């Protein structure tokens, strides 16, 4: 580690913090704009004016929005996410389990899709223009072009309903052993891997091909290096930055973007939690979920940046 890297990292972290602040601000006030008074919704038919006023007061809703924003921000910083309006439980408790589920799913999907995407992307780049490359391209274009819910529903139809190989639902309840775990995650993981890997394959292929056009790759070729060596030793290390960036973008989708998959497989993740929260106008929960998505996105981007910095000897050794 040297000073330059330290400075770069510090700068990225600073940028991330600023982005987070902007996001926090946007999230808080955007949710404030949601129509429908929380107190009124909570009380439902029993909403007499006094009851509403009382509830608003007890929830500090009578205070100015900016003051509440500061409270909320203060809470966030001290790790206090507040209490859910809907059931008065700690938001942190509500989210904890769901987030764990989402992270599990994201993790398994990543484990599954990243190697596949890398392999396909790199090999497609290696054999650019070949039938294999064209097949991979057709595959990725098709996957990118087909709506996710189609993929998911078809997967259920085939694997769960007709073949009965896999469960249609992914309720991570009583998991016994790895086999069971794999079975339970199989459907959403297959669907998500499809969706996520297509983009990664394309980006990996493009990045590798970009580096394949460089003079040092030609040089390696003229040294008599095999295609394999050229790609793995020369092109890939230099394509790492953009590849990692593409992966970060794809993977960020795995937390917040999976609402459709969560719906179809009835998977209890954060995305569904947030949709629930929206319909009950559970602001603390919405805000916390939104912050989680943003933090995860920014973290992934940060990691990608750092990997790119680390992979670049220009920055690594000055």
């Amino acid at each position: 580690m040297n000073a330059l890297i330290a400075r770069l990292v510090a700068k990225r972290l600073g940028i991330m913090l600023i982005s987070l602040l902007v996001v926090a601000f946007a999230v808080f006030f955007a949710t404030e704009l949601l129509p429908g008074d929380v107190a009124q919704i909570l009380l439902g038919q029993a909403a007499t004016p006094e009851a509403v006023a009382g509830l608003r007061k007890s929830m500090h809703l009578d205070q100015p929005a900016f003051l509440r924003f500061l409270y909320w921000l203060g809470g966030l910083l001290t790790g206090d996410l507040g209490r859910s309006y809907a059931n008065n439980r700690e938001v942190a408790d509500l989210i904890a389990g769901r987030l764990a589920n989402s992270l599990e799913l994201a993790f398994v999907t990543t484990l599954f899709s990243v190697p596949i995407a890398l392999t396909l992307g790199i090999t497609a780049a290696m054999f650019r223009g070949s039938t294999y490359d064209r097949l991979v391209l057709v595959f990725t274009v098709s996957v990118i072009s087909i709506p996710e819910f189609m993929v998911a529903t078809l997967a259920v139809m085939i694997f769960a309903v007709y073949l009965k190989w896999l469960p249609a639902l992914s309720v991570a309840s009583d998991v016994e052993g790895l086999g069971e775990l794999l079975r339970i995650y199989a459907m959403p993981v297959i669907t998500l891997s499809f969706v996520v890997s297509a983009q990664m394959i394309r980006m990996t292929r493009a990045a590798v091909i970009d580096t394949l056009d460089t003079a040092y790759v030609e040089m390696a070729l003229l040294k008599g290096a095999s295609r394999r060596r050229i790609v793995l030793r020369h092109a890939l290390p230099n394509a790492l930055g953009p590849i990692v960036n593409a992966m970060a973008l794809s993977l960020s989708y795995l937390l917040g973007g999976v609402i459709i998959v969560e719906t179809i497989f009835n998977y209890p993740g954060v995305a569904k939690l947030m949709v629930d929260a929206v319909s009950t106008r559970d602001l603390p929960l919405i805000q916390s979920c939104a912050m989680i998505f943003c933090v995860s996105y920014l973290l992934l981007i940060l990691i990608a940046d750092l990997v790119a910095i680390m992979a670049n000897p220009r920055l690594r050794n000055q």
Partner: protein
Amino acid sequence: MSHDTVTNWTGRDDAMVEHAIRRGATRRDLLRLLMASGIGLAAGGTIIGRATRAFAETPKSGGSITAAGWSASTADTLDPAKGSLSTDYVRACAFYNRLTFLEEGGDVRMELADKLETQDAKTWTLTLRPDVTFHDGKTLTTDDVIYSLQRHKDPAVGSKVNAMAKQMESFKKVDDKVMEIVLSAPNADLPIILALHHFMIIADGTTDFSTANGTGAFKCEVFEPGVRSVGVKNENYWKDQLPYLDSFEFIAISDEPARINALLSGDIALAAAINPRSMRRLDGVDGVSLSQTTSGNYTDLNVRLDMDPGDKAGFVEGMKYLINREVIKRSILRDLAVVANDQPISPNDKYYNKELPAKEYDPDKAKSLFEKAGVLGQTIPIITSDAPNSAVDMATVVQQAGQEIGMPFDVQRVPSDGYWSNYWLKAPIHFGNINPRPTPDILFSLLYASDAPWNESHYKSEKFDKMLVEARGSLDEAKRKAIYDEMQVMVSEEAGTIIPVWISNVDALSSKLKGMRANPLGGMMGYAFAEYVWLDD
């Protein structure tokens, strides 16, 4: 987004029931009538299809199932007072007991109450069953009952039936098993009120609802709001033999095709609330049976009579001729419905007016009526939403029919989120959805009396109001029938509520699952299926 159908059922619905009952409570004749005849609530429930066969079989003990409702959220609760979704009711029914139970056919059966007696319908004497214990081993006493009922009156609890509980003016403990409930005014419907899901009995002093300590057939093992709940058999359950299942898990799958897929793949044994258009999918599939309940549930098109264009003579009548009930029944509901005649009393009710025909689809007549009203050719907005069942499809049927006679309707689908508070009862032409009500009196006082809280079409008729009171006070069954018949005619002809069909509820279940019956309180056997079903192999 399908929460709203449920929220609709409860939040709004409980309040409706409560209002209606409160309004009717002072009528001594009504309560006399009820007590005398022993006939309770006439909400019709029938079971058709393959599920009927289950009746004859002998229950077996053992096994466990997973059942899926259609919605769950983080607002899920184990506090019966706050229950608002089907999942809450299913859990409450499994983990707790009520004092009374509303049976198929509307009869009230005693549960935790051994006896519930009154002389004047104001002071009720409640005797508890002797041998009931909570899951933690504590014996059920009147203290628990008083605590359970009393807490609904505390605004801090946030009970959904707070207003209804307010009429229980005081509770008096006589001894551990006997107590008195004094109402603020006589109400013969107390046994029915106590059968509502919210009036589950919890142990005295319970404030923590992270798990459930009830007297019910199952003990709560897992409770993850918005995710799942698991109950295991209560070995000390006070009912003999029940429950048959060793354990059950309840989840919610909001996506209907996913629910069916899960049933077909064998992941779940029961999928509640099946869409009619999924019937073809389930038809002829081995190992799946359907439980259909045709009750008084309907989605109606409401034309406000106090606003343009509903205030123009002939418009409403035109709409009644323009709505193609047959198409709605066949195409939208795939025959899982019965054609209705624009009034709320269901054909299963003994007061149903069989002489009152449903209006035939007659676009020409509608056209001339619109012409008479002077609205033909005007673009008229119809507010619809996914919140009331099938309302969007019904709206397009009306729209299409209108187009053919040169009557353009502008169908506006609004978000189901907030539909009930923002559009229902408010828009000039909109859709509503009404769940079954026990008696014509409740239905009429709730929906059609001049001062009815949910007078969907803002119908006002002094004559109707008078007849309503008269029927309530009448002990003469024939006369009541006659009055109700005429009231049905009036509503059908004059009110702006167009009720095209009665909608059936269909639950799909694995054919191994036996013992499902209909219940007036809703699908899944009034949410209490867990206690009564068994697995057959």
